[in-house]
């Protein structure tokens, strides 16, 4: 087992097609982040003023929810490598809970904005804030749907210690959703 781990592979774990897709997604997010940063540079006052209206406590909880969820996905993969399907299923269920917690908290935040009449056209800051977080929000939904499929497949016993490429691929997508938020959180909520 130890030897196997020390051999390096040429391609990342999971399906290469998915990694190409991840690259494309990351490229979109990178452009969005750069656009935010450069637009902010010429509207610093406005951005600082409205950044202060955001709820950083919820954002913190959201970050932790995504991290925890990612953690459970990794745990599920480790379990499947030991052929512990039951345990793996449980871990995947917990990671779905984490994703859903994110959705619920984010929706609370959105409904708060909506009650204040804030939308994409309110001002430049909110345009970016809503565009970026909503684009990410939809990725979380997609990610949860992927996790659901993985969960069902694991429960059916489709993955084994030797064959769990699907699980690793889906997991990689979910980590991508997580790591994008790790940039989003400081960039939009805290950096000034």
């Amino acid at each position, binding site marked *: 087992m130890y030897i196997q781990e020390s051999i390096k592979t040429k391609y990342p774990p999971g399906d290469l*097609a998915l990694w*190409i897709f991840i690259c*494309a997604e990351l490229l*979109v997010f990178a*452009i969005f982040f750069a656009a935010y940063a450069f637009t902010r540079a010429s509207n610093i006052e406005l951005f600082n003023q409205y950044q202060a209206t955001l709820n950083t406590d919820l954002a913190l909880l959201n970050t932790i929810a995504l991290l925890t969820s990612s953690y459970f996905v990794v745990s599920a993969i480790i379990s499947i490598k030991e052929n512990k399907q039951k345990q793996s299923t449980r871990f995947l269920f917990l990671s779905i809970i984490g994703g859903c917690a994110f959705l619920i908290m984010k929706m609370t935040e959105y409904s708060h904005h909506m009650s204040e009449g804030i939308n994409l*056209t309110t001002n430049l800051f909110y*345009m970016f804030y809503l*565009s970026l977080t909503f684009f990410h929000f939809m990725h979380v939904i997609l990610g949860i749907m992927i996790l659901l499929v993985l969960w069902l497949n694991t429960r059916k016993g489709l993955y084994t210690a030797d064959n769990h490429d699907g699980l690793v691929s889906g997991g990689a997508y979910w980590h991508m959703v997580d790591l994008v938020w790790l940039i989003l959180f400081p960039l939009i909520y805290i950096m000034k």
Partner: protein
Amino acid sequence: MKYESQSVAKLYFIAAIGLFVGQIVFGLIMGLQYVMGDFLFPEIPFNVARMVHTNLLIVWLLFGFMGASYYLVPEEAETELHSPMLAKLMFWVFLVAGALTILGYLLVPYAALAEMTGNHLLPTMGREFLEQPTITKIGIVIVALTFLYNIAFTILKGRKTVITLVLLLGLAGLAIFFLFSFYNPDNLVKDKFYWWFVVHLWVEGVWELIMASILAFVLIKTTGVDREIIEKWLYIIIAMALITGLIGTGHHFFWIGAPEYWLWWGSIFSALEPIPFFMMTVFAFNMVNKRRINHPNQPAVLWALGTAVMAFLGAGVWGFMHTLAPVNYYTHGTQITAAHGHMAFYGAYVMIVLAIISYAMPMMRGRKACNSAASQIVEMWSFWLMTISMVFITLFLTGAGILQVWLQRFSDEPMSFMVVQEKIELFYWMREGAGLVFLIGLLLYVYSFFIGGKERTVEDKV
């Protein structure tokens, strides 16, 4: 040709080429009107020539897509066409409807045509590319649905491959998004916004699925590369095309009254739109390099490679050049758009239809695999003449566009539109010259069908 019913495609291909010639003739008329303003005035005013030019393009490409489907679907599904009779009938319906519409444009004033066809009952006429009388539009829907029915039932009863599924998806999308052409609200902003749901989601959406699946078919046949590999690429390319192209619609919403956030969403996603075209180029060259057979039909391979390169240049590079909002602010509605449009349509859609015609026609005309060497040489000449002259048309229009932007919008003392048009006349003359060469290339292409001789065989490699 493996199945008898594939031969209905021949009708469609012949009509497509015929209409293509018509399209180019009217293109030349318009080009001349750009420099000799009173040419054919008032018999054929510019707007009429333009309608004929653009509508013929759409109609002949549709003929090409339908012919391609009728040819490749039976072969892929490994079964005869569901109803060859229906395919022939719809061919004549579509041809007659198309011809009547074009004659209507040419023979009566447009307003009279609107009156005659009862446009006031359901006003849909008079919008760019959707100028057809409402009754013609309804005809198009009927033809498209019948065609879809025929293709879908052929696929259902036979083998289902990725190529046919993607093609079917593209064709279904084509029919569905055309329905937006019946929605013409009084509010101009909404009118323009939803107009793009036809135009953009066609040419930068579902048509790309059709194009990619035809390209994949031609590559499988001419390179002998494993279907599995080609199908994987096909999926990834069209996935990227839709991922970038759907939100990429936003690059049309910058200045037509849609909210400001489209400047960002549209710029970001359309900046990524060259990616699928780039992948397509890499894909085509990769497959040809990995080929396991040397197919004797060289022009077909040439067209397939050509479409991959020219689509990337025309749609990808020329599109990217003016898609970012700060650039588009100055270039929107200038000759730069025209330059991009010409090369993109030629590269992505004209060439793919010519590729499948080039591949399929010899077999439908009773040859084993390809035309004689003499005919192939002429066809390859026509390829280079048309392609190079299209590159020049694009370059001249780009030159005209850059000058136009500078003189009319950017300089300290902006000049009026008509004054600028006179100043850039030289570019229009050169464009017209390149257009003439294009016509010569096209006529050579037609001529290549009439060259006989011994069929080139597989051993007969160059």
